[in-house]
């Protein structure tokens, strides 16, 4: 089984990379992009029986820095 973890900078934390992407899109003529936030996706290949709460513990301890990032876990 697999889990997919989405890690994003929290709202209110400046995301200069997202801002740079937004500027680039504007410069390319894509109007109407009001904001861009850039995050990451981490896929875990897990033993059968692993639970969502195991993955959440991994997020708390390593995969996300909860001072600046939020995460969500999707079991797939």
């Amino acid at each position: 089984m697999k889990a997919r973890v989405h890690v994003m900078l929290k709202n209110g934390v400046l995301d200069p990379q997202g801002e740079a992407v937004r500027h680039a899109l504007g410069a390319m003529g894509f109007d109407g992009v009001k904001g861009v936030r850039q995050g990451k996706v981490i896929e875990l290949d897990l033993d059968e029986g692993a639970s969502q709460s195991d993955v959440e513990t991994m997020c708390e301890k390593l995969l996300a820095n909860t001072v600046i990032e939020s995460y969500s876990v999707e079991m797939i």
Partner: protein
Amino acid sequence: MHAAVIVFPGSNCDRDLAVAFEAAGARVSMVWHKDTTLPEGVDMVGVPGGFSYGDYLRCGAIAANSPICREVAAHAERGGYVMGVCNGFQVLTETGLLPGALLRNAGLKYICKTVGLKVATADSDYTSGYEAGSVIDIPIAHHDGNYFADSETIARLHAEDRVAFKYTENPNGAQADIAGILSENRRVLGMMPHPERAADAGHGGTDGTALFRALAGALVTA
């Protein structure tokens, strides 16, 4: 003073930090990241700059969970001294020994230049060799040095006089111009600028020397 300098795969300021400690009179042991104990009698641990574990996942995140970092945290919890420079500061925030986090520079560029730092407090064994309020010139070299913490944390750092250094001209977007901070017991210091790169006449500046001398003076082994 017996100092240990931690060496991670990707550390590149470990020897510079060792040389600066030695120049101040310290005995230095280099400690590999896979070691599980610090050498006997170490009173100071230096976490050097560089790109530990290739900065994978987040700067300092993997290093913070390495075997030796559990020992470094235990050393700090016993009241031991720990100093993290640049990537070392990122490691110390990731371990939770210091609050906050270091984000990508606001201008997105890697910045490598000498900057002015205001000594925000002289009340620590790291900064007692400076006059509070004085300005020193120390190099920075980082891509992720933009200090971030929530507003309560920033207010607490100021109220407890735990901001060690502030940029005179903020190069990276750091909140409240913060370049370096102290732990509650003032024995853990994290800073983005590199005092070990301004500790010899050959470096083009020696404003970092006073930090290492003050530390060695405070940690004279009885």
